[in-house]
């Protein structure tokens, strides 16, 4: 018994390990976390998969055995108890009981016995009469189920553990130990995986995963095992027709569901169904669960815009997310590594409650409705551009325009290391919500042949306004051309660099002002020119258009830190989702549930049914009542008292009550 209890505690403590140390992670992670020195012993101890470690299973086995032994030991006794009334108890033993009462009987024994029987019946006791030479002994009892409870609760433990064992991966572990099966460590196509790493569809119990893109099918799943995996063959092939995802107005996910078709390999019978979280689909004994989802390789179309060249025309590019393709940019061989395509990006720009303000806090505390304000930034695609040297930059481009203060931009984020946040370039959209306007302007700004034209037109205006005249005009045109050139070499940064190198400290402020003025003037004429070149009529510059031009200057300037000479503008997409399934076959399940029922019944009986036994011995002038209970507590006392009163009533008045 002490053994059993210590076992309970030890198992509990052992179980803790697996909860503090994340289980079944990729081995490199552990090496990284603990270092080589500790990794070895930890792995040897099976700490990375405690609950399947041999020593842990051994402990469970002990638990089962000891419980079984215990049941075995108690069974005969319990059955005897449940049957017998102990009607052969000797008076001596009855008198030895803690709860007994001896009375002088005033009435006839037979009559008294009648009443006693009646009383005990009322109290729900079953009894047996036993005539003996020294009188009549009535042995009664109630609540034998209590003893049964012990059996139920304990056999439940055994049943549950056996069920668990049936579903556990013990057989597989043994086969691996014996070298019959072998964990697959390589990352190769499923078809090339050798038989010793494949498990037949006859496998009694398994739990594995498969990831399917919409429209694709599979007839195997993967069981991960330590640092590798096994391939489990299925009796059917499973095909993902479509994956659905829905959101609440608050942005949280509302529904994940997969429409699938399951075709039985043997019969060719097709079962269609929908798998949802909490609603698995069960096909001939195998349960299919919704476990994850993602981008399954969506078809994307881009317009490739040159950041720096003279051309304002894009080239088309087709791509598929989750794939890599080579791309030749102005003679430089690059690779585009496309990552996740996201059909929507729901951002929560929730209003933070200002702390300190008590009234506000109380106000909030009364509101059950979250003051969330969520915004969908629309589709986005993430990708890397890798050059010949293997240097890569990561980009995040949004398809839909981003609105700010009534103006619209296309956002493109860039970063050079993975952890870093994206730095965004905002590309202003023209009046028909296109990039073209900006790109045409950009082309003019970076076209040396255009600069003199822009400069001349600016000078004309200036002269016309009388700002400059005769001799200064040439100088003016030169400096405009010069500023545009500098700018086209590196944006504002280039101008600053020049100031830093060439212009004395005290003059810089003033000179910088002039440059900016010139640039701001020049961009207007550059814009007119760009429209002419595009065969569009010039437009009068108003507030809104002026801001567009300023935004354009900023964007062009930012393009010099963009890190790639082109901008991939997402234009259209055809989404292909993927869905992750978990498939399980667990024959032990029903056994475990059966055990659970037994357990609850057992515990209930053990705690809430009390087994009481009462003996009443009646002889001429004598009545002896004794009570025994499986539990000695206040209740036993009250029970005893009620019976003592009853017996006293039956026995009649006592001259001096002896106990």
């Amino acid at each position: 018994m002490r053994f059993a209890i210590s076992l309970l505690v030890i198992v509990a403590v052992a179980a803790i390990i697996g909860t503090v140390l994340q289980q079944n992670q990729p081995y490199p992670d552990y090496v990284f976390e603990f270092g080589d020195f500790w990794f070895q012993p930890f792995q040897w101890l099976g700490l990375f998969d405690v609950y399947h470690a041999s020593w842990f299973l051994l402990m469970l086995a002990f638990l089962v055995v000891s419980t079984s032994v215990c049941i075995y030991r108690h069974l005969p006794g319990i059955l005897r108890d449940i049957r017998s009334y102990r009607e052969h108890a000797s008076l001596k033993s009855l008198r030895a009981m803690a709860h007994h009462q001896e009375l002088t009987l005033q009435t006839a024994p037979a009559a008294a016995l009648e009443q006693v029987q009646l009383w005990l019946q009322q109290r729900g006791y079953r009894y047996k009469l036993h005539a003996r030479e020294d009188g009549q002994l009535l042995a009664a009892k109630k609540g034998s189920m209590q003893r049964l409870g012990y059996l139920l609760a304990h056999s439940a433990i055994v049943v549950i553990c056996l069920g668990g064992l049936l579903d556990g991966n013990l057989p597989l572990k043994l086969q691996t130990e014996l070298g019959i099966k072998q964990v697959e460590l390589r990352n190769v196509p499923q078809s090339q995986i050798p038989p010793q790493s494949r498990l037949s569809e006859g496998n009694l119990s398994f739990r594995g995963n498969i990831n399917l893109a919409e429209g694709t099918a599979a007839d195997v799943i993967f069981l991960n095992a330590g640092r590798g995996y096994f391939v489990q063959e299925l009796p059917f092939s499973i095909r993902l027709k479509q994956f659905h995802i829905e959101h609440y107005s608050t942005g949280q996910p509302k529904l994940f569901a997969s429409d699938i078709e399951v075709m039985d390999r043997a019969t060719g019978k097709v079962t269609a169904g929908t798998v949802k979280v909490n609603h698995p689909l069960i096909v001939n004994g195998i349960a299919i669960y919704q476990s994850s989802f993602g981008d399954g390789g969506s078809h994307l179309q881009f317009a490739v815009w040159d950041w720096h060249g003279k051309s304002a025309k894009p080239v088309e590019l087709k791509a598929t997310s989750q794939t890599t393709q080579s791309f030749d940019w102005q003679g430089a061989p690059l690779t585009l590594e496309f990552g996740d395509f996201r059909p929507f990006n729901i951002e929560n720009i929730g209003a933070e409650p200002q702390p300190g303000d008590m009234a506000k806090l109380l106000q909030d505390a009364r509101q059950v409705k979250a003051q969330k304000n969520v915004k969908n930034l629309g589709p986005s695609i993430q990708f890397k551009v890798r050059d010949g040297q293997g240097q890569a930059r990561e980009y995040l481009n949004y398809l839909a325009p981003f609105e700010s203060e009534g103006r619209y931009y296309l956002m493109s984020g860039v970063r050079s290391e993975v952890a870093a946040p994206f730095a965004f370039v905002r590309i202003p959209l023209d009046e028909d919500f296109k990039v073209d306007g900006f790109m045409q302007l950009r082309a003019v700004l970076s076209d040396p042949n255009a600069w003199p034209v822009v400069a001349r037109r600016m000078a004309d205006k200036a002269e016309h306004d009388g700002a400059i005249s005769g001799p200064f005009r040439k100088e003016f045109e030169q400096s405009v051309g010069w500023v545009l050139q500098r700018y086209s070499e590196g944006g504002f940064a280039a101008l600053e660099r020049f100031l830093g190198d060439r212009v004395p400290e005290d003059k810089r402020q003033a000179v910088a002002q002039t440059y900016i003025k010139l640039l701001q003037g020049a961009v207007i004429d550059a814009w007119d020119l760009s429209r002419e070149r595009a065969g569009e009529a010039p437009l009068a510059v108003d507030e809104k258009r002026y801001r567009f031009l300023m935004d354009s200057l900023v964007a062009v300037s930012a393009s010099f830190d963009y890190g790639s000479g082109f901008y991939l503008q997402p234009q259209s997409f055809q989404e292909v989702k993927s869905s992750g399934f978990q498939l399980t076959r667990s024959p032990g399940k029903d056994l475990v549930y059966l055990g659970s029922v037994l357990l609850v019944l057992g515990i209930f009986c053990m705690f809430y049914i009390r087994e009481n036994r009462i003996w009443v011995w009646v002889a001429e002038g004598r009545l002896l009542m004794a009570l025994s209970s499986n539990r000695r507590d206040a209740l036993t006392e009250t029970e005893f008292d009620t019976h003592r009163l009853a017996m006293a009533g039956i026995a009649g008045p006592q001259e001096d009550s002896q106990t």
Partner: protein
Amino acid sequence: MSTSTLAAKPLSKAAQPFWRDLRLGDHLFAAFVLLVAGIVFNRYHAAMDGYEQAILAGATLALIALGWFWKSVRVFFPVAGLLALGGIALYGGDLARGQSAFWLKYALASQSAAMWMCVLFFLATLVYWGGLLRRSATLEAIASGLTWAAAGAAVVWFFVRWYEGYLIGPDIGHVPVSNLYEVFILFCLITSLMYLYYEERFATRRMGAFVLLVVSAAVGFILWYTFDRQAHEIQPLIPALQSWWMKIHVPANFVGYGSFALAAMLGVAQLLVAKGWLASRLPAYETIGEVMYRAIAVGFLFFTIATILGAMWAADAWGGYWSWDPKETWALIVWLNYAAWLHVRLVKGWRGNVLAWWAVIGLLVTTFAFLGVNMFLAGLHSYGGL
């Protein structure tokens, strides 16, 4: 509930089938509960799947049984229930009224009710201690009343919040047992009700001072969680939680947690008595031990059921009834711990300080299973994250 065979009051003279013992009050109560359940059913059965209808039926019967077994409930639930209905009626289908209508704003809106609950529990704790230290039966009676009121507020909170969810959005409403904030209030409700039951059964209010301490701790957490984290806002259910299992798994669990917490506080009281502190004021050492045992017995039964329900839910949601997920595993640890506790008491017949200490430590283990896991350990079961 099933502890009726434990009744410490003298048994009625002749043991007749229980329904013969039922009085008019019992029948009225039953009728009332059935009526309400009936109304709920024909109003909402369209929105309930078969399981949920079964749960409604089960809950109805359970509540009637509870009322018959513990008579005070026959008054408590109708009163609290009617207040809740009043609140719901005041809303008249418009959430905004929660901030304008007087009775909602200051009493019956779920969050107002929650605040009342917090205040009342704090008061009850103080008054219980006052009663204990000044040996004043009056104060203890008042404290007991305050505790009832606080529990009532929690019941109002529960039903009104449930309704408010649907006012926010038909797809957002759900029974409020889905996140840490909600279950904490559930915890306060269950713990205090269980205490009130034992208070009546053992005809002593002396243990309230200790039991209410743990409730007050929970209340403290609730306040922090509300004001610092806005945790009280009603969130829609993520797919993993959209299951009728939740409706029974969570409450069952909290009967367990509640009684374990209660037992631990009694353990503390018992240890003090053993030291001779407050000994003259607290109930007898054995009595405390007895109540402690019963609390753990009830808790253990419900915790077992809850764990099994959890396994069955997992079998639906995660693809396996047992995944050795941290939450599951800690539930097992708690379970084994109390199984061992019960063994040494029932089998080895242990009594006294060791068990008391063990019960206190048991609460630490339980608390970790309840909170610590969500805070410190990653896992499938990270819904109630802080």
